[in-house]
């Protein structure tokens, strides 16, 4: 149990096939108490909380929209009041659209940037301020993406928000190191999450087979595998000296595609 006694918050945690759930469960399996936040999928969120409690850990579900700073500040206050000072914050909530570059709409742009980029800033800054006030250091982990290393057509805004998160995480790592706060990001490849349900490149069995051909390990990632990478970054002493880093958990997708 590498995270016993730690309190963690995970955003975008609820959906039964989502990466956030894998992160929440992996943290709980290593002994952390987990606040599970999502803007939707409340029933699945409550079910996740029950599973975490079944592991003998404390857990609670919180509904909040990370693109709204007021909601984020309230969320963090409530989590600390309910579960105690958090030491781990995983900014994972994300949305995607597929649109040709020259046809990207302002509505889609604003939605993706609001959740993926402004949401990351809101959660990252509010968490960092609280960790500094707590005076005990901490861990911040963003879910970025293989888009940080590789371009995917029709996903310009999504990919751009992830590159923005990469740069944000690096700047945060530089500035927060003296507070013993590490800031890293993980790069999932293909996960069969709800986010990918509307992917035009994954509509048929043949599409999936073609995608598997690009992945040396020849299968999609389970959400829990993303969570285990987060556990490593959040463990102490294992992760104490790792900051500003990008941990790609993609089955070799990026190296295989080149």
């Amino acid at each position, binding site marked *: 149990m590498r995270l016993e006694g730690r309190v963690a918050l995970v955003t975008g945690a609820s959906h039964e096939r989502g990466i956030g759930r894998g992160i929440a469960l992996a943290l709980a399996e290593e002994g952390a108490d987990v606040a599970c936040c999502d803007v939707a999928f409340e029933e699945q969120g409550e079910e996740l909380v029950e599973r975490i409690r079944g592991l003998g850990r404390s857990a609670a579900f919180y509904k909040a929209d990370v693109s709204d700073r007021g909601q984020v500040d309230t969320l963090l206050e409530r989590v600390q009041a309910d579960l105690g000072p958090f030491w781990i914050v995983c900014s994972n909530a994300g949305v995607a659209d597929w649109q040709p570059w020259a046809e990207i709409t302002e509505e889609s742009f604003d939605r993706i940037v609001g959740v993926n980029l402004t949401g990351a800033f809101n959660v990252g800054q509010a968490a960092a301020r609280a960790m500094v006030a707590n005076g005990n250091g901490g861990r911040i982990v963003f879910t970025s993406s293989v888009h940080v290393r590789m371009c*995917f057509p029709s996903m310009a805004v999504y990919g751009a928000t992830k590159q923005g998160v990469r740069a944000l995480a690096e700047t945060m790592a530089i500035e927060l190191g003296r507070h013993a706060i590490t800031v890293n990001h993980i790069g999932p490849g293909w996960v069969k999450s709800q986010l990918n349900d509307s992917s035009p490149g994954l509509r048929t069995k043949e599409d999936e087979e073609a995608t598997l051909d690009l992945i040396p390990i020849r299968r999609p990632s389970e959400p829990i595998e993303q969570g285990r990478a987060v556990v490593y970054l959040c463990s102490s002493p294992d992760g104490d000296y790792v900051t500003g880093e990008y941990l790609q958990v993609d089955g070799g997708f990026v190296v295989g595609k080149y």
Partner: protein
Amino acid sequence: MPGVTTHGLAASLDEAVKQALVDVELPVVVAGVGSQSRAAFLELDQGEWGAAVDGARSAFFVARRAVASWLEEDSGGRVVFVVSTASVRPVHGTALEATVGGFLTTIGQVGAVELSANGITVNTVAHGWLEGEPEAFADGTPAGRLGRADEVAGAIAFLASPAASYVSGALLPVDGGFWITKAGGGSPLVR
């Protein structure tokens, strides 16, 4: 009709770009993003964040609207995004320019993937610390001095020229070598 549209550039850079691009053969958009705020990350306020994101938003949509018309006319064209070297190598106090610069770089690279077959290239210039920035940045820059606007404009002019017809999706730092190493000195942005 070829023409040059500039957007979101600092005044001195905007002027230098217009001078350097007088003879373009294709329509060109040069759209930049950055932030005047050098606040520490913990002290950034919502307004500063919002302004930086709005800057990236308008830079993108200026380019995206131009590209839509180039596709319709089958004219080809060149997009050059302009970001700060902090987006490649962040330092203290650069959270905003690093983030929006990274954002714009990747949105441009995906554009390059989608548009290059239509004769439209999309590239990004990452400028270094230019004259007007704290002189102490010169100590951290291998070139040992701050950069000039015309040096950045020259790279943009190259990317807009026929010589760069096969350059698409590139990220060209014009920063005196800052992004590959820190030559010396502390960041003047540390508080």
